[in-house]
């Protein structure tokens, strides 16, 4: 922590400039740094928003035309990417290995299920719901509100899990999170009869879950859709909203990384003892990382449940935590852009890519071995490019130059 905290932009040659090949002195470099630095993300975002419009034309492209995922698939990809970006806060920034991220995802999904379905038919409570018969029993809140509730509730769960466990270091913490990742799905499966009270509807899951929408008033005023479910272009509507949520997540995570809290996380990741000696409050800082990672996991879970119109315990298996971790590792731990790239690549492979590759090479079983393939990706990345596809600068130093003292007897392979 002796050097000044580094930020993007500044004296560095512009990334966009390099990307577009205009090196030093090009027109792009004459732009102010704040604009320059937003250029590439801006272009990517714009292209992403145009995807549903462009997709019919992309299909006609030769050879690669078949590879483009359906818009509905992209929604799932974005949700997973959101989780990867959230997990990146915990694993990448703060260096806390979380093997139970799926627990937060489950918490989010079930929050949506509780507050926007027929589950609690003992009560009838409606608030801000759209396209739902007002006499329908159960709690029906606006899905937008639920996203916030889910985020906060899951963050609370994260803090509750974190408080007793974050004292532990490294691998012990990984194991505890793994334990929670195993307990919560089992709890969800079994909690259909707690003294006669049906909390989660057991293995059947809770379905249907209400859909987001903007209601009649906004529809009449500015033409926003009343209810996504009843719209003809449902996947597209979910797509745009998911993209907005992802943008929000990325924005928050980037800003956090450059904040005082973010620097504290990185300090803890690099050397916990030194960070503590420098006055970084370990517990509070780690708990924040946990809460924020959980927050986005919760939102993603709630949104996904609403998109899938249900929350099912079979969605929350341990492997999913590893899957999301694999996205972060593939992309580059600590790098937000890496998490996005890793998330998109892996969730694409999982949803459509592996099946398509399997068909292309004539082995239909490829999707069956998905986790072996992800495992292979993890191992190969850790061995040969531990910094990930898009390396975060500090992480790169850490991994390539090492943080420990020189070995006395040259055991490095």
């Amino acid at each position: 922590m002796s050097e000044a905290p580094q930020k993007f932009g500044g004296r560095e040659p512009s990334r966009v400039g390099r990307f577009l090949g205009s090196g030093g002195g090009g027109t792009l470099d004459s732009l102010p740094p704040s604009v320059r630095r937003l250029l590439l993300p801006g272009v990517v975002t714009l292209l992403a928003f145009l995807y549903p419009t462009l997709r019919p034309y992309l299909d006609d492209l030769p050879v690669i035309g078949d590879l483009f995922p359906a818009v509905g698939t992209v929604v799932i990809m974005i949700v997973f990417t959101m989780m990867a970006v959230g997990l990146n806060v915990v694993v990448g920034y703060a260096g806390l290995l979380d093997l139970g991220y799926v627990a937060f995802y489950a918490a989010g999904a079930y929050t949506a299920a509780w507050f926007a379905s027929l589950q609690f038919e003992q009560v009838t409570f409606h608030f801000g719901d759209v396209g739902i018969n007002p006499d329908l029993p159960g709690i029906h809140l606006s899905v937008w509100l639920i996203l916030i509730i889910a985020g906060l509730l899951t963050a609370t769960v994260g803090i509750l899990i974190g408080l007793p466990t974050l004292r532990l270091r490294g691998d012990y913490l990984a194991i505890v999170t793994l334990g929670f990742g195993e307990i919560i799905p089992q709890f969800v499966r079994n909690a259909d009869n707690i003294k006669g009270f049906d909390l989660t509807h057991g293995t059947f899951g809770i379905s249907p879950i209400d859909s987001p929408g903007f209601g009649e008033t906004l529809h009449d005023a500015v033409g926003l859709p009343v209810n996504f479910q009843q719209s003809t272009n449902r996947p597209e509507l979910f797509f745009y909203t998911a993209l907005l949520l992802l943008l929000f997540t990325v924005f928050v995570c980037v800003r956090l990384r450059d904040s005082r809290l973010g620097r504290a996380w990185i300090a803890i990741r690099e050397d916990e003892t030194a960070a503590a000696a420098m006055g970084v409050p370990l517990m509070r800082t780690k708990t924040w990382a946990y809460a924020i990672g959980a927050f986005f996991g919760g939102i993603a879970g709630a949104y996904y449940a609403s998109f899938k119109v249900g929350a099912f315990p079979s969605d929350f298996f341990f492997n999913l935590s590893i899957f999301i971790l694999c996205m972060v590792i593939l992309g580059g731990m600590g790098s937000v852009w890496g998490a996005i790239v890793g998330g998109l690549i892996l969730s694409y492979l999982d949803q459509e890519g592996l099946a398509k590759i399997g068909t292309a090479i004539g082995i239909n079983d490829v999707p069956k071995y998905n986790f072996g393939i992800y495992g292979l990706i993890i191992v190969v990345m850790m061995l040969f490019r531990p910094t990930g596809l898009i390396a975060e600068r500090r992480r790169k130093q850490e991994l390539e130059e090492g943080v420990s003292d020189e070995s006395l007897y040259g055991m490095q392979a």
Partner: protein
Amino acid sequence: MADTAPTGGRPAFAGAAAYVPRTVVGWLGLLFVAMLVFWLGANLVNDPSEFFNVFFIGLTNGAVYALVALGYTLVYGILQLINFAHGDVFALGGLVASSVILTWFDVGGESGTGITILAITTALIVAVLFSSSLNVGIELVAYRRLRNAPRLAPLITAVGMSFILQDVGLVKWGVEYQTVDPLIPNTVAFSIGDVDFQWNKISVLLLTIPVLLALTWLVTYTRQGKAMRATSQDMDAAAMMGINVNRTISFTFAVAGALAGAGGLLYFLHFTSIRYDTGFQLGLIAFTAAVLGGIGNLSGAVLGAVCIGLIEQFNEGLELYSPGSDWTRSIVFGILIAILVFRPEGLLGERTPEGQ
């Protein structure tokens, strides 16, 4: 085999009676123990013979878990690495053993005693050799390069390795369970009161106990064992004393793998079915056992494994106040979390800075 010198932590169990908790967490832990004692006591009074029958089953299961738990503890002791792939090494060992028994010898319930014994012995040798070379290979390929990397790097690699091994099992043996008739009869060897001791359970103990004694002897009295202990204490210092650290680590992985192979065979014989993903679940249970006993501590791993085996069986078999088998996994992991929170050094472990 803890990696640090004792730092003046309190010795295990010393003055347990006079232990007064200082914190809320401590009181919670005490409450937890009190509830456990009450639950077991109520069941013991309710139906003693059932209690001891369940106890014996739990002990047998615990013996199988112990073989796997020792592998975790050995590797952790020497590298401070949670070898996630260990459970899958165990499963592959069991699957190889199943192939030997079912395909090579085609042994079933009606086969003669001679051929059954021959099949089991061959399966034991093959599984042990296979698993230990597999484990050594994994260390060479996946962990050795990362020895000086940040500690999370090999851990993540181990998780990846675990998935690769699972899919190897899936490719070779498919999704179906490999099942075998009970090869060792469950006739009653002897009874004490109403409690029956069956051959199939005794045989597990008869195999496990010598293995554990041999391991203790290996670590405590042999030159190689001394090298292992030295390496686990301080790798640099051990290297300076002329110990070939790489070879010692390979040897440790070989021993751990051999135990996993034997465990795989025993699991297959005892529970009569095994599948590619058996190792993952059992690995987690065994790891919990190792942590419960105090990771890095050999006798701790055995004690922890027996405790976990007992708790599982008590939970599923006892009548009064038992949550039932739906909750077994939650309970096992709940224990894991509770141990890590309340007493990270485990039952027998020494207090290390890791746990603080």
